[in-house]
């Protein structure tokens, strides 16, 4: 497989601005931090959720509860002889019952990851509601799922790769689209 047409659609500054905006949108829409909980989808969503949590703390002087969800065990393609993914740890050390849960991921694509994450979340207790925040919405939905907070919408072809890199793992903050040629 070759890659061509590499295009940076967000750099570090744009990501930062988007997260500031998303944070304010979350606080406004939920009227503060009461019962608010942030859950990052492993792996990219975790870094973004942590950053949003820090921004909320700076604004509201309150640390909202934070959890990590791994969706591997809820994939709907597991029994289809498809790839066997490594299972990561889910870390939600509190009940989600009656909480306002904000699910955070880096890229929204088919919607199947978000569906799996919502299935998993409900096993931790019945939340009051679940909202979705994503850095990039690249379209091509296969399920009726829509984000409540979006950093940027980008137009992609199904064969494109959308790659988000994070400074937390030693890379510059950046969103890059690559066209795959098979």
């Amino acid at each position: 497989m070759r890659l061509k047409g590499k295009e940076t659609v967000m750099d570090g500054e744009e990501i930062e601005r988007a997260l500031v905006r998303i944070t304010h949108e979350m606080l406004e829409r939920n009227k503060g931090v009461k019962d608010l909980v942030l859950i990052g989808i492993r792996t990219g969503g975790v870094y973004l959720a942590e950053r949003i949590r820090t921004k909320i703390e700076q604004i509201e002087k309150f640390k909202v509860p934070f959890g990590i969800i791994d969706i591997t065990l809820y994939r709907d393609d597991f029994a289809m002889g498809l790839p066997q993914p490594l299972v990561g740890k889910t870390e939600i050390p509190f009940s989600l019952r009656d909480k306002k849960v904000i699910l955070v991921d880096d890229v929204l694509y088919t919607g199947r990851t978000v569906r799996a994450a919502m299935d998993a979340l409900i096993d931790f207790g019945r939340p009051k509601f679940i909202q979705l925040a994503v850095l990039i919405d690249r379209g091509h939905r296969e399920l009726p799922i829509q984000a409540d907070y979006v950093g940027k919408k980008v137009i992609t072809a199904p064969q494109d790769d959308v790659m988000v890199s994070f400074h937390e793992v030693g890379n510059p903050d950046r969103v890059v689209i690559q066209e795959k040629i098979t």
Partner: protein
Amino acid sequence: MRWAGKDILGIQELSIAEIQLILDTTGSFKEVSTREIKKVPTLRGKTVINLFFEPSTRTRTSFEIAAKRLSADTINISTSSSSVVKGETLIDTAKNLEAMKPDCIVIRHPASGAPHLLARLMDVPVINAGDGAHEHPTQALLDLFTVREKVGRLAGLKVAIVGDILHSRVARSNIHGFTKMGAEVHLAGPPTMKPAAVERLGVHWHRSLAEVIPEADVIMMLRIQLERQEGGFFPTLREYSRLFGLNVDILKPAKPGVLIMHPGPINRGVEISPEVADGPFSVILDQVTNGVAVRMALLYLLVGGEKEADRSSL
């Protein structure tokens, strides 16, 4: 690394990397049992057959709970309820079961090698839940996981395994497992229960329990199989208990954080005193809890997909 094997037949066949992968995967599965709803849909539509030719409560129940927490369907077959009592051979039983299209067979059998025979005959994954005096790999894996979880490492630890080493599949699997993972294994028991040339497995033999206590990071007591007493391996249970039973007094010189393990079921007052079995150093019930997580991990690795994950399609 990704899992490539078809079966789990023994620790002897597993590489260090494979054991590491199983233990890491177990860590992820342990969390599922702490949830409000202790069930994930991962193996929905899959069927696991527990084929037990020997009595077992703990292991069979553990496998059944593990499969059910992954949403698999489970069928339990024991000798008394199977066609074995009508004279059917293991090979015929295996072929008939395979014709019913299960996704995994878990087998316990009094004959060493029975799971290997089944694995050669069948395309579905086979997990050895104990075969004769040969191996009990899932017990060793849960023991490895428990020690790693409590101590944080396996390499460099001194592990004492005490009791009937000769007849113990748990001891054999744990010797392979702990030595592979870099621990030092010390064995102690009556000389009549010492396997011939056991030192070739890279372990140290001791004639008394007291010798191994002060240096051990982990003390694993084995169940004395009461029927062995009739075989003349030791004169009386009382004498065995006096020489090789773990009690508060003999534990006095032990390291402060020593772990006391036992694969169960326990003969209280024979190989271990109730004060020690229920004491602060005992991780016996943690072993049972971890058994479910290890078996969930194995079912996931064996029954699941095969190739590299491609999360971009999600």
